[in-house]
């Protein structure tokens, strides 16, 4: 399966290897990591939850769209759920293709659509014990 949810650590090298083939000269790996900006105070990590059946169905639809636009791309997409500490990756997208423009563009498409459409939610966890749902503005 090219795209799924997981509760395990994401492994960049394994993901890159999973899409490699002799005909592909370019691989793009994107990692989204839990970030603590200066305004985030004592943020320690984020709890990710999902609507798993729909998230995986939506991943399949997004990957199918990407394959239609970039038929030569090999795609692997993983999204973690559960608690993820600052600095750890929540999402990893590897795309290999014969030439680099396809790899960059396809990777960008996959992350943009994932963020827009896949039913996954974040709850920020602070050292103080406070917890807050992340409510994006693009509702």
């Amino acid at each position, binding site marked *: 399966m090219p795209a799924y949810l997981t509760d395990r650590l994401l492994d960049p090298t394994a993901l890159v290897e999973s899409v490699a083939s002799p005909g592909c000269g370019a691989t793009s790996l994107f990692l989204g990591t839990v970030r603590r900006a200066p305004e985030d105070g004592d943020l320690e990590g984020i709890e990710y*939850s999902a*609507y798993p059946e729909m*998230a995986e*169905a939506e991943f399949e639809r997004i990957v199918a769209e990407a394959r239609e636009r970039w038929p030569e791309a090999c795609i692997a997409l993983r*999204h973690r759920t559960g608690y993820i500490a600052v600095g750890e990756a929540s999402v990893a997208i590897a795309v290999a293709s014969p030439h680099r423009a396809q790899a960059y563009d396809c990777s960008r498409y996959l992350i943009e659509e994932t*963020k827009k459409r896949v039913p996954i*939610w*974040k709850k920020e966890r602070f050292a103080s014990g406070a917890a807050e749902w992340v409510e*994006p503005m*693009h509702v």
Partner: protein
Amino acid sequence: MRVRVRFFASYAEAFGRQEMGLDLEAGASVADCVAAIRADPAASRLPPSPLVAVNQRYARPETPLAEGDEVALIPPVAGG
């Protein structure tokens, strides 16, 4: 007809549950289902037009429902 309604994330917290069964008139739409859900006082937490998925796919308010459908109220997504 009966549908299964699912709540996630902040909506699940607001409604204090993750799912419920709901009886609707035959031919009811997504909008009718949302209106029925609004009978619950916790529904004040919902935006005017919440995102809805039917059987794991985003659906429009006018989409007709069928017996046994899974209707999910989707809070603003924040993956990635």
